[in-house]
């Protein structure tokens, strides 16, 4: 942003801008040169911003009616659903909004994995993104506890008990987290506090995420560095704004369908039973977006190692920019990586599926194989691939995508990805 010279045309604007350069910032955001070949997978950044704002706004309004007390939480949620004006709508948007948020973030992450957006010089953007993702999981987990249904209570019990795996201090930490000898009212009130806080931390990190993005600029489907601004770029407004808007509307149609026609399909029936510390539901399952990690946790027979495996599965992503040794960003020019990429996608989907199934028999075996492969992909395949893989010729720019004049696979592939 430092390279930006902008002077407001009006006197008042100039006076204000000299003291607080908000207009410079606004001008930077509208003029921000964006690669013009970005495909629709790139619209999920905007969609995620929408999701965050939706969650914050609906969450604030719900907090005006919700009562964070073990005796009243369930009832206050029913009060919201029945009596508060549009309460049912706001709550269903918030509950399904969490799922839509994760759907979007997974697409966003896998887009980054496919096009190598995490590589130099964008490592910081990526790491901030992983922190946001971790905070999202924490916020979602604590939010799920608030209605104080059976799944809330037992989910909270199971997840907080993960900390008891820590040697020596584990038990103490769990008691500290609970504020008692079990999940109870003190746990609920602190979870509510944190659930309220975390979205604002996420918001702050999103600002940093975008700031860090605006330093090198967007990656693009071809994955090459581009000059900006140039004939390879378009100004963010109106080109990207309208395109993001179009994609967002499509996303909202899906969102609306969930909210209005199947609002409870992504939740669990047991959460409409008020929390009962004496009875555990027959099948404890987390929300769908946490299932792959839940599968990893259960696939390890040792308590401490299971927790370590689950955490490593997320944290390993933070060091991905250094595990992937290839200099080529886009999978379009990496035929082998592309295949491993799709295997990883399948692997994560399988983990999600077995995470929802009982941890026994064949499911357990599949979970173990899939867990092993997950780590194999990041720790072994990616580092080796960078040295062994024969990549396809790279174009010089996104408008003149041919190097050396021979029409080859790269061009065809490139064209294909651009057309998407």
């Amino acid at each position, binding site marked *: 942003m430092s390279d930006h010279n902008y002077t407001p045309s009006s006197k008042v604007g100039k006076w204000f801008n000299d003291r607080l350069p908000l207009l410079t910032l606004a001008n930077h955001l509208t003029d921000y040169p964006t690669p013009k070949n970005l495909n629709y997978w790139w619209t999920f950044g905007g969609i995620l911003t929408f999701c965050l704002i939706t969650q914050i706004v609906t969450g604030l309004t719900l907090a005006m009616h919700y009562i964070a007390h073990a005796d009243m939480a369930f009832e206050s949620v029913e009060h919201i659903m*029945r009596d508060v004006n549009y309460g049912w709508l706001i709550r269903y948007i918030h509950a399904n909004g969490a799922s839509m948020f994760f759907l979007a973030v997974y697409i966003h992450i896998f887009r980054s994995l496919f096009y190598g957006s995490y590589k130099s010089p964008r490592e910081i953007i990526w790491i901030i993104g992983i922190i946001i993702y971790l905070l999202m999981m924490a916020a979602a987990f604590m939010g799920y506890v608030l209605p104080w249904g059976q799944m809330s209570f037992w989910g909270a019990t199971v997840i907080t008990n993960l900390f008891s795996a820590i040697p020596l201090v584990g038990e103490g930490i769990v008691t500290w987290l609970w504020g008692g000898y079990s999940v109870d009212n003190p746990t609920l009130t602190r979870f509510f506090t944190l659930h309220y806080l975390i979205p604002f931390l996420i918001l702050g990190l999103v600002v940093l995420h975008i700031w860090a993005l605006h330093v090198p600029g967007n990656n693009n489907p071809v994955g090459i560095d581009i000059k900006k601004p140039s004939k390879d770029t378009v100004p963010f407004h109106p*080109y990207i704004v*309208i395109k993001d808007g179009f994609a967002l509307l499509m996303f909202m149609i899906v969102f*609306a369908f969930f909210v209005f026609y199947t609002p*409870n*399909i992504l939740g669990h*029936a047991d959460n*409409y039973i008020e929390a009962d510390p004496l009875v555990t539901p027959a099948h404890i399952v987390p929300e769908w977006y946490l299932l792959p990690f839940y599968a990893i946790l259960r696939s390890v027979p040792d308590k401490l190692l299971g927790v370590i495996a689950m955490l490593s599965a997320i944290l390993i992503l933070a060091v991905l920019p250094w595990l992937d040794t290839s200099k080529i960003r886009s999978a379009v020019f990496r035929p082998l990586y592309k295949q491993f990429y799709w295997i990883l996608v399948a692997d994560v989907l399988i983990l999600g599926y077995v995470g929802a199934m009982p941890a026994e028999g064949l499911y357990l075996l599949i979970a173990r194989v899939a867990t092993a492969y997950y780590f194999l992909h990041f720790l072994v395949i990616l580092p080796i691939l960078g040295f062994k893989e024969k990549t396809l010729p790279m174009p010089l720019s996104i408008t003149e995508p041919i190097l050396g004049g021979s029409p080859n696979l790269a061009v065809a592939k490139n064209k294909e990805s*651009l057309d998407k």
Partner: protein
Amino acid sequence: MIGVSSNTSAAEKLEYLKTDWSFKGIFGKFDRGALQRGYQVYTEVCSSCHSMKYLSYRNLAEKGGPEFSEAQAKAIAASFEVTDGPNSDGEMFTRPGKLSDKFVMPYENVKAAQAANGGAYPPDMSVLVKARGGGVDYIYSLLQGYDEPPVGVTLDEGVYYNKYMYGNKIKMSNPLSDGIVEYSDGTISSVEQMSKDVTTFLMWAAEPHLETRHKMGFKAIIYLIILTILVYFSMKKIWSRVETEV
């Protein structure tokens, strides 16, 4: 996605009985007659053990529900004794119910309910339909699922056999029998009819704004489609200034 798993580990998996629910689908609405009859079944049969603590008598007259007239709902409310107080002497007293009162509970608390029912708590019915994996189909089937236990299955005192119950053992005796309720609208009260009516009533109780939700959803999605089309053409126009396709 995960909600349906509650019956998977039952030894023999039985398909739930199906019926045509008027409230399913994009334009789904409740059948008022079924809701009113269902309320009658609930009051005359279920409510002796099952509470419905999140509903108020005023709900019975609200739009999208059984839509009793205000006078009818008031009369219904007044037919119940509600504990109120304390009065100026510091004592609790009873008075006839008002529209703003919550449904009167059959037992003071969970412990009292358990004590009166052989240790099993008859669950509150306010959100029961949403609290069961199979939803309305499950409740509808369960009410018609009572049967003689198969050979080899022994039942303890106070335990009954039900085809659709998880584990097949249920502590609620068969609540319905043909003609147990006399419908004021002349509908024949077969077990099947009553099951359907009371399940419809329970669906409304759990989702009182279902009709509004369906109507609003339709409008919202139509609106979004129109705006999406407009934005699409605007986008095409704007991007026509550069040669890249969108």
